[in-house]
């Protein structure tokens, strides 16, 4: 009995994950190679050429998504690191309050916050109309429907997922190690670059994984804040699946995206382990 106890405890959750996470991926692969339409039904024809077709048709959107994800991730690291650093080392007894403040925005729906940004950044909105009436920016200046708006929205929405893992890694740095470095005549800068920074890198990597992946697959920001020139691969997959009901090509695009990301995710897990991400998620 005792030997089976862990398996019995795992069973319900394990089955849920197997049936609704692993099995659907197989079905997605199957749907991607079917042919037909939603009225007459889809037939499995093992049409592998669809992958070549959709990848050449939507290569631009794939590359654009990866580019946006990359830029937004780099900006997030730059913005998040000093903040995580200050909370971890100077937050004192208020650390958990600051962390709570970082997480509180999540109680407002992600879509509603993005819509709020749309209103803020609108041509006649709260931010631009005063600037325009003061003559600080030209009248035809606009932020919405630009790359900057989409990348800004991505950074805004996913920044907490960068702050949290970096904070978790920094908080674990023993201050005595830093003191030891200073006792050994390391300048403050050296103590940071040679001791604190390397120790916090696992947190940065975890943050990169937790932001780059969802940012690249995002379609909400491009839809609400961007224009026709900012279409990301998520927008294509979403509209093919839910608007056009073109399941095979949507499934093929999603499967290709998933394959690329799973390779990255498992390479990450192999190289760096799963603990940093799991620990940050437990916060």
């Amino acid at each position, binding site marked *: 009995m005792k030997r089976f*106890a*862990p398996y019995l*405890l*795992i069973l*319900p*959750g*394990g089955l*849920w*994950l*197997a049936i*609704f*996470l692993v*099995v*659907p991926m197989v079905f*997605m692969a199957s*749907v991607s190679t079917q042919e037909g339409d939603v009225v007459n039904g889809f037939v499995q024809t093992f049409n592998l050429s669809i992958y070549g077709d959709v990848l050449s048709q939507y290569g631009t959107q794939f590359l654009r998504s990866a580019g946006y994800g990359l830029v937004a991730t780099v900006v997030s690291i730059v913005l998040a690191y000093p*903040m995580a*650093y*200050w909370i971890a080392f*100077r937050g004192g007894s208020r650390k*958990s309050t600051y962390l*709570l403040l*970082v997480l509180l*925005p999540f*109680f*407002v*729906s992600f*879509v*509603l916050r*993005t819509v*709020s940004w749309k*209103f*803020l950044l609108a041509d*006649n909105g709260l931010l631009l109309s005063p600037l325009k009436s003061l003559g600080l920016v030209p009248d035809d200046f606009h932020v919405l429907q630009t790359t900057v708006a989409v990348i800004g929205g991505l950074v805004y929405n996913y*920044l907490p997922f960068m702050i949290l893992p970096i904070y978790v890694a920094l908080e674990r740095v023993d201050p005595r190690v830093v003191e030891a470095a200073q006792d050994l005549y390391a300048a*403050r800068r050296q103590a940071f670059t040679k001791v604190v920074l390397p120790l916090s890198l696992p947190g940065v990597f975890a943050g990169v994984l*937790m932001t780059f*992946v*969802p940012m*690249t*697959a995002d*379609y*909400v920001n491009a839809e*609400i804040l961007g224009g026709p020139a900012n279409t990301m691969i*998520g927008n294509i*997959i979403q509209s093919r*699946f839910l608007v056009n009901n073109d399941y095979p090509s949507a*499934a093929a695009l*999603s499967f290709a*995206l*998933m394959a690329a*990301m*799973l390779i990255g*995710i498992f390479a990450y*897990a192999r190289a760096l382990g*799963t603990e940093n*991400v*799991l620990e940050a*998620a*437990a916060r």
Partner: protein
Amino acid sequence: MSTATTSAPVTAPSAGAPAPARPRRRLLDRLLKVYVWLILAWLFLPIAVMIIFGFNDTKSKSNVTWQGFTFKWWGMLDQDPKLIEAVVNSLEIAVLATVITTVIGTLMGLAMGRYRFRGLGTVNLVLFAAIASPELVMGSSLLSLFVSAGVQPGFVTVVIAHVLFSLSFVAITVRARVVGLDPSIEEAARDLGASTWVTFWRVTFPMILPGVISGALLAFALSIDDFVITQFTSGALQTFPLWIWGATRIGVPPQVNILGTLIFAVGVVIAVVNMVTARRRT
């Protein structure tokens, strides 16, 4: 503005750090503190706009420019029955998904924190994949499954999806709590003649309860906020985020701001209470 350091004792004998380093460091710390508050202000800016524009006396469909203060929208909350239905759906889904996730996630967390067993590595990897996979991919593969199996997407499929993406978070939160337990307390209970069942409910469970509660709160917050997976698995069902998405093109009415504000207020109260009680316990 006291420049005299209160915390650090004077380090005259070491002479390692030159004297000017200290004021510079304090300046840097202060700048960083200002920076932290600026980022927090940025994170809260759209939320402040959402709250304020719930009181906007707007005449047109688009609630973008300030037209004067009014309470009238609070009295007209139930004007759009579809919107109310969407909010109720969101709440029902969140409650049901939270209950299921908390039960099966706690069991997983117990197993992972307590036992070393074959397959633990695989479980870890699957939980990790569930956290790291983009919602778009999870949503589209679930839709592929439902389409292939001939299942009509709706309430049940949304609950299934919400349990799926919050399960790992609950399992990991509970695991963290289980790992921190002192096994000798349970041994003491058993030495005093308590059965396994009694030991669990009277000793183990109360000790892991804070982890279970934070896990449940997280599951609820993730569910009520979710958009992407919900859009893929909802069919014709509307939830609050889906309704807003549909309304963005024609204009979001002030009632949405008010409902968003109410949900936010409840979330803040629960999170603060949870933090304060957690602090008191430790």
